[in-house]
Structures are given as structure tokens and as C-alpha cells.
């Protein structure tokens, strides 16, 4: 009886003043609504309250995340829950999963999301922001992604989607997308970003300025994966890849072929053209 009265009051309050609430308050209200099992009421409040720009990623935020994931999983929106968790774990990789108050499905979803987000290298090249809708958005409203140029010609490509025009948002269904960003004279970078329902993901490339070094050109027959100093940098043919001046370990490998290893020395402003490396068929590493 008391819970029902609370829900009724909460619903009236939300209907009249949700727009006036700060995202932080919406998050708090969402947690409270979840605690009285008012899931339909809690869902838009929690999604609005997850805005990382609205406050710290503290215990309230983590509590809201758990509740959001649980509501989505319970209502059969597993993929949407997975996207929210992947997004959240990229913000806060050290989230302690609450296995006492939430069913195992929530813990499993967290574990799967951690498996996806923990594998990659720490992204130091891009900066990501999110533009949250002014009012709580619908569950399955499409989101968007936008890349912003930083004073240099920038091109961006979303795997499975196509090119992005810098500065223009591209509406996309919610999900995790791989984005290739490239600026001539700068290393290209692949990043993975989530697109949340109703939220615009904004990616900015932090260009590390003109490289104090040279550029590598290498090709191989057939194509292979290129590693520079044990870091994967792309596939052959690779051209004008910026490198710091000095000596570097170059490795080209492809499954079924013997890896090619060499040391390259590049000087400042040098364009080092290695040529086409013929890979020899043999037992190669993947």
C-alpha cells in the first residue's frame, strides 16, 4: 500500500517535473523506483541519470547501473543491457559487481561485458563525450555517433556502416561499433564505442601533432598484419605511417605464412619505403 502510494506520488512528480530535475536526481529517483519494483517508471529515470557528465561515477551511479541492467535483462532486452554494461565498463572498468543483491544473470552480463571491454589497449588517442537527451528518452530510440575534427582533415569509418562526415551526427541503432579514424600525417586508430538509445556519442581525435620522426611504407604479398615494436598497427599495404625517429622492430605476419621480422631505422622526416615483402608459405602464427 505504502509502495503503491509512493509510486503514484513518484509518477506524478516525474510527469510534472522530470524536465526540471537534474540527471543526478533522476538517477536517485530511478534507484528508488526500482527498489519499490516500479520498473517501468525506473527505466527512463535510470537511463537519464547515467549521464556521466551529470556527476561522479560513484556508488549511486554503480547502483543505478546494476538496476538498469537488471530491468533490461528481466524485460528481455539482453542486447541493450549488454551495450549499457559495455559502455559503463569503459567509463569505470573497476566496477565491483554486486552478486548479493542481484540475480546471476546480472553478474553474467557484467562478466561478458568485461570480457569485451578489457581486451583492448587503453585508448589515449581519442576523447569521447556523450550528448544526453534533455528529457528521458525511449528505450529503443536510435542513438547517433559524431566525430569531430581537430583542425586537420579527418576521416572516420564505422565498420559495417560506412564513412562518417566529421561534425555531422550519424543516426545508428544502439550497439557497439568499431570506428577507424585517420588524419593524414598521423597514425590511424581503431576504437570501439557504444551507441546508446537516444544518446549521441561524440568522438574527438587527439592528434599528437607532427611526429618528430619519419614515415613507414611497407607492403607484402599477400597482405599481412603489421606490428611495430610488438604493437599491431594495421594491415599491409601501410603507407605514411608516422614513427618516432630511431630503430623499430617490424613484423609482418599472416596465418599460414612464416612471419617476417626485421629492424628498421627511420630518421627525422625520412620516408622509409621498405617495398613489398614476399611472405613465404609455412606455419605462421595467427
Amino acid at each position, binding site marked *: 500500500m505504502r509502495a503503491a502510494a509512493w509510486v503514484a506520488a513518484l509518477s506524478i512528480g516525474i510527469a510534472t517535473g522530470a524536465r526540471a530535475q537534474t540527471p543526478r536526481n533522476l538517477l536517485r529517483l530511478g534507484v528508488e523506483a526500482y527498489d519499490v519494483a516500479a520498473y517501468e517508471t525506473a527505466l527512463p529515470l535510470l537511463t537519464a541519470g547515467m549521464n556521466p557528465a551529470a556527476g561522479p561515477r560513484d556508488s549511486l551511479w554503480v547502483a543505478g547501473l546494476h538496476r538498469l541492467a537488471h530491468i533490461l535483462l528481466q524485460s528481455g532486452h539482453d542486447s541493450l543491457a549488454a551495450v549499457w554494461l559495455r559502455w559503463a565498463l569503459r567509463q569505470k572498468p573497476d566496477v565491483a559487481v554486486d552478486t548479493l543483491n542481484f540475480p546471476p544473470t546480472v553478474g553474467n552480463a557484467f562478466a561478458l561485458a568485461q570480457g569485451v571491454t578489457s581486451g583492448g589497449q587503453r585508448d589515449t588517442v581519442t576523447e569521447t563525450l556523450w550528448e544526453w537527451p534533455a528529457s528521458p528518452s525511449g528505450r529503443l530510440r536510435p542513438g547517433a555517433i559524431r566525430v569531430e575534427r581537430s583542425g586537420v582533415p579527418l576521416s572516420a*569509418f564505422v565498420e559495417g556502416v560506412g564513412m562518417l562526415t566529421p561534425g555531422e551526427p550519424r543516426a545508428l541503432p544502439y550497439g557497439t561499433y568499431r570506428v*577507424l579514424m585517420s588524419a593524414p600525417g598521423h597514425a590511424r586508430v581503431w576504437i570501439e564505442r557504444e551507441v546508446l538509445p537516444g544518446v549521441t556519442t561524440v568522438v574527438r581525435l587527439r592528434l599528437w601533432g607532427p611526429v618528430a620522426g619519419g614515415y613507414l611504407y611497407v607492403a607484402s604479398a599477400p597482405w599481412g598484419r603489421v606490428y611495430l615494436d610488438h604493437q599491431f598497427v594495421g594491415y599491409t599495404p601501410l603507407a605514411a605511417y608516422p614513427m618516432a625517429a630511431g630503430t623499430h622492430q617490424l613484423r609482418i605476419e599472416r596465418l599460414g605464412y612464416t612471419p617476417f621480422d626485421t629492424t628498421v631505422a627511420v630518421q627525422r622526416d625520412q620516408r622509409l*619505403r621498405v617495398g613489398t615483402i614476399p611472405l613465404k608459405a609455412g606455419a605462421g602464427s595467427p
Partner: protein
Amino acid sequence: MTIGRLVTVVIGLGAAGGIVPSLRAQGTPEQLLAQAITMLGATEPERAVELLRQLVGDLPATAASSVRRDAQLRLATASWSLGLLDSATVHFQDAARADAFFQPDPDAFNPEEVMAFRAARRAVVAVGVRPPGDTLLDARTGRWPVAVAVSQPGQVQLRLAGLDTAHLAARTVILVVDSTATVSVPVMGADSAPIAPGTYRLVVAYSAPGGTVSDSTVSVDVAPTTPDSLAHEAPPPDSLFRLEFRLEPRSGNALLRSIGVGVGAAAIPLLFGDRRLRTWDTQSRALFVGVAVSVTGLATYIFGRPRRLLPDNIDYNRALRSAWEERDRSIAATNAARRATPMLRIRVVQKP
């Protein structure tokens, strides 16, 4: 205008006017493409991109679509490797337009290139047709198989139209194609009569969510023709036939009989002849007859071995001969039927 700028303008005009050798003078499109590939192999993509941009810009409309496609693909992959993703996408799209059938081989194109090509192909509205070069069809019931490729799922209309007029020559085929399909185009008009001989255009209209496009670059020549008759089969070779008899071994009795008959032929006149009439001459004749009969018998013994017929082999040979005769009659009947069927020969005279 400063003198420096003036010089620059003059040089520029000179280059445009042909002082600098034109690209065509440097070789055929195929040669230029090969040069660009060599540059790419030498990891000089900037030079290759420059050359390829000129090449695709100067390609005549009549250039083979494969050259256009390959040039665009090389340009796209070189641009991609340089990080010029926008340019690469545009060139991948042009390659997809040049050859809607093309699908990158994952062994030849790296995963990023494959992914970029597929995304670019999905973004354009391109259609391609590949009709068979030379086809013989039954004019009443024949259907002309044409391969169609589209970049996006959409509706494709195919029809044969007159070269000079836009009048419809044959029935229009309408179908929804996801990626590739083989369409059977009927070679008859709406009244089910065979289309008249002449030159036609294969008109392709394609509409997809991304837009519409039409193509009528394929021209075909339709002519009535006598169908090729089937060649008659050669009779079975002798090696397939089995022996129909077997030679029996010679018998000593036959030898004795033949010699005995000769001896008898000589002895009878000598023994039972009238002695009064006997002279050396008659004796020698009798002996001669006896020897001749014996020699004949001997020759018969040597060369005339007895034969035994083999009925199974005779039956087998007869069956072999009958089967061949049956096939020959069937071929003759087929040829007669073909000569009675009106046929159309459809030859592609201009490819896309």
C-alpha cells in the same frame, strides 16, 4: 599580376594545351595501370595515386569496364593505405559502379579494404548485367539467361527494346534481386510471337531504396538460324567386335586322306588301265595328276583349317551393330526435329 604568377599561369596553360605529353601518349590504359601497380609494389603510393587519378580521369567511355574497375580499386586501396579514407570510399564506390559483380577476394584484399569496399558498395545504386555472348534459343519457348548483380536489394526490370525506337520488343521481366541472380528473359513479344530479327538493346532498370538507375549499354543481334545438327556417330570400331568363329586344329587323318586321294588318283590308271595303251607319256600324266591331287590336298590341309562358329559372339556383335543403328536413327530424328524448330541466335555485339 606579378611576373611569377604570370609564368605559372603560362606553364599551366602550356601543360593543359599539350606541351606536357598527354597521358594517352604514355601508353594504353592497361600499360598505365601496370605502371601504377609497379609503383604500388615499390611502396610509392603517392605516385601511383597521381597516375591512377589521371588514368581514371582520362579513360574513354569505351574503355573496358574491367580496366576502369581495376584502376578504381587500385586507387581506392592506395588511398586507404595513405589514410585518405574519404577518397578511398569514393573510388571503391566507382569500382562498384564499374562492375556491380565484383566482390573482393579476402585473400587479395586486406580485411579493412574488404570492409570498406562492402560498405561503399552498399552505399551506391549500381546494377550490372552479363548476358551470354552467343546463344541459340528456341524462338517459341526459349529464354535468354542473363546474370544480374545489384549493389542493394531492389527491383530489376529487363527488356529487349529496339535499337532505334523505344518500342518494346519482348516481354518485360521484373524481379527482386538481393545481390546476384540469373534472369531468364523471354525472346518473344506480348503476343507470344518470336521477336523479329534485328539489333536490340537490353534495357535494365533498377530501383532500390537508395535510388534508381538504368543501363542500356548491351546491344544484341537477333537472327533466325538453322540449328546445328548433331553429328552422326561413327560405327563401332572393329576392335569392339568379337570373333565370330574359331579355327579348329589340323588333323592327321585329313593329311593322310589328301595324300591318299592323290596316290589313288595316280595309282588307279596305272593299276587298272589297259596295259596296251600305257606309254611313258600316259604314266607320267597319271603320276602328274596324282601329285597334283596330293599337293592340292596338302594345300587344303595347310591353308584350309576347319572353322567353328561362336554363336554368343555373333549375338554380341549383332547387338552392338543394332545399338549403333538405333543411335544413328535417333540422331537423324533429332536433326529432323531441329530443322523443323524455328531458332534464334542472340549475339552480344556491344558489351557493358
